[in-house]
């Protein structure tokens, strides 16, 4: 248990396998032999072809699934305990806002469930709406917002209780390219301002390269960690997307993904 420095590791995945429908005819090994340590404050992407188990891995960290073997530790405690302590916020591809709550009330939902007072909730949701640059939309209903705006609200909701870990499952997958690039910059800004650890699932090579400090490349069926690409591009701006160093890193990620195909 003392193999890592507790204060620096946000997530430790130790020898994890995940088998669905074990023992039946449709048994699927989704993940096999996963070892991964994510440091506090890191921005790590999980990338791989569909069916490689990257979303499964994210759900194991969030204790929305339990590993078949091995263990997942989040901030030094078992993932289950971390979920019960609500140590992380989650953002899905589908913004998942509740139609019946106004935008501010959606952001305040996790705070309400934690028993915050009305005044505290209102103050925090206003702060969060500023953070995601939607200060005037608290009184709207989610359906009155565009897809990109809804996803910002979803991020605001996930961050409202200031979790030290943010789990994101293809959050920009349903957005158009322009909105997506804009949201990427916004997310990096928010990451810098809050100091949150981010685990980000994507199947986009440029997205993973642009956002992350490390890109974890998964191979399909059963999902294994094929390689981990360190990305050091300094502070990202829109210009980064046209930087040769960025292309070089994206190529490295692409080749790591291709290596799987050859290997398989």
């Amino acid at each position, binding site marked *: 248990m003392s193999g890592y420095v507790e204060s620096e590791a946000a997530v430790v995945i130790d020898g994890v396998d995940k088998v669905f429908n074990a023992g039946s005819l449709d048994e699927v090994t989704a993940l096999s032999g996963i070892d991964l340590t994510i440091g506090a404050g890191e921005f790590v992407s999980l990338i791989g072809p569909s069916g490689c188990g990257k979303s499964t891995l994210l759900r194991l960290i969030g204790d929305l699934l339990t590993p078949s073997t091995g263990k997942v530790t989040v901030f030094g405690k078992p993932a289950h305990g971390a979920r019960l302590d*609500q140590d992380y916020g989650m953002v899905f591809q589908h913004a998942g806002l509740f139609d*019946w709550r106004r935008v501010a009330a959606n952001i305040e*939902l996790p705070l309400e469930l934690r028993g915050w007072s009305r005044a505290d909730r209102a103050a925090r949701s206003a702060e969060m709406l500023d953070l995601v640059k939607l200060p005037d939309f608290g009184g709207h*209903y989610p359906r009155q917002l565009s897809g990109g705006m809804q996803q910002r609200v979803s991020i605001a909701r996930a961050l409202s209780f200031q979790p030290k870990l943010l789990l994101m499952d293809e959050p920009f997958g349903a957005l158009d390219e322009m909105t997506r690039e804009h949201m990427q910059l916004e997310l990096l800004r928010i990451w810098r301002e809050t100091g949150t650890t981010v685990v980000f699932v994507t199947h986009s090579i440029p997205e993973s390269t642009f956002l992350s400090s490390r890109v974890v490349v998964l191979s399909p069926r059963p999902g294994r960690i094929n390689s981990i690409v360190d990305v050091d591009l300094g502070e990202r701006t829109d210009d980064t997307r046209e930087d040769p160093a960025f292309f070089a890193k994206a190529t490295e990620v692409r080749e790591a993904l291709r290596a799987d195909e050859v290997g398989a």
Partner: protein
Amino acid sequence: MIRNRLAGLGPPIVVGVAGLGLWEGVVWGFGIRKFLLPKPSSIIGRLSENWPILRHAGWETGRIALSGLVVGIVAGIVLALVTTRFRTLNEGLTPLAVAVNATPIVALAPIFNAWFGITGTLSNQAVVVAIVFFPVFINTARGLTEVHPDELELMRSYASSEWTILREVRIPNAMPFFANALRVVAPLSVIAAIVAEYFGGPQDRIGNVITSNVAFVRYDVAWAAIAVASALGLALFAVALLVERVSMPWRAAMGDGEYTTTPGRE
């Protein structure tokens, strides 16, 4: 928005009045016999002549419809909540309810007379309850269970209890489904009450007023009773719309169009 709504009433009123005018003209012009189709003007005349009887009949039938409606709705919602909590019960009961709902329940009216008495109102109420219950139960149960998986995962990430998920997600999610059922069953309750009255129950109700006046060849009075029944159905439908509007302000904020056919979220 209110001005738009009032403006929206214009065309149907114009068409309705024109339709009545056409009806009057056709009956007069083609000399259609009174027992086949009386003129609107003579129906209105009978309506005012027989107003005390018709008002009483409308009131009593309305009470049967409304009480049956309320009992059917409450029973439907309660059973939907129970089946949502117990998955196996839901899986066993829902297909059965869908099947029963597809059968002509109103055909049970004479049987209900044998069960609950032919002279009292209980058998009529029972028909209304049986008609109302199934659509409410089926739709509400669907709304309670057809929740987007991401939303359930989100609630689990908050370490929410099943009770919290029910309160925060399932019940609000079910409301548009329930509202759709309500739009159907509110006017249906009047139909059910009247059909039940054709088979039995006290003699001073809309159903019996229609049958007895037809028996005495007073077709225009029967039509006047039908007009009262229509007004009842419309009134209950209006109440259903009002309940929907008041209980789901987020739908009103979105405009009606995109919600009327597909409740919930895609």
